[in-house]
């Protein structure tokens, strides 16, 4: 049987490189969803991973770090929050 392809649509999916059932500890929304102030997931609402290995929506974390009361500490482990450098990100 010969089949002639008239048209085709490419579909792709993506998700952040974190455990699938992990949520942002600040807003409690799944990482593949957005922080509460964004509408669409993706590069506009990235996640941020600390040297302590705790991750958050970037917007959620920045809002926390802006506050004086945060003293620059990770909301999870209270160590000074430092972003994991790009070369240090372990990709799987």
């Amino acid at each position: 049987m010969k089949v002639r392809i008239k048209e085709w649509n490419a579909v792709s999916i993506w998700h952040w490189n974190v455990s699938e059932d992990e949520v942002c500890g600040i807003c409690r929304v799944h990482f593949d969803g957005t922080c509460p102030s964004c509408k669409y997931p993706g590069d506009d609402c990235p996640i941020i991973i600390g040297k302590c290995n705790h991750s958050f929506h970037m917007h959620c974390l920045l809002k926390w770090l802006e506050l004086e009361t945060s003293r620059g500490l990770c909301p999870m482990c209270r160590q000074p929050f430092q972003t994991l450098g790009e070369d240090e990100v372990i990709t799987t």
Partner: protein
Amino acid sequence: MKQQQAKAAGEGASTAAKKVTAAQLRVQKDLTELSLPPTMHTHFADPEDIMNFQVFLQPDEGFYVGAHITFEFAINLNFPHEPPKVKCLNKIYHPNIDLQGNVCLNILREDWKPVLSLNSVMIGLQYLFLEPNAGDPLNKEAAMDLQKSRATFAAHVKNSMRGGYVGPEKFDDVLRR
């Protein structure tokens, strides 16, 4: 995954229409995940307003066994970046609660962090009643009392809970509802 993303985006859109704030979303999540011991209950005076409610505590052991303590929770729009504001509505004799009802609990003040939930705050409150902390007092007299002698402190607490006096202060009767 895509479905989840679409759902998340959809949620974002519908909440924007209803103007549900980030704080309300997070409070809603915390409330659904609440798992309180049988000694604690929440009460929503206005079911439409999830940002203001009361928490009832009846300790089943410790100095305050048998008391009915009521706390008022007021959550502002900066939640979870700012802690909920918690006040004790009863005038009680407690080292970490002053006569105006202000509560001194580390996670409600300097140790607050946004990953803490309303559940952790409520459990923290219960802990204050099981193990009052004389090291970090708001009511200095009560703290000194506890430090000097647990037995005298216990007697004073018992008397205060019946609506009696400790020193010049008269306290609320919290044994009856």
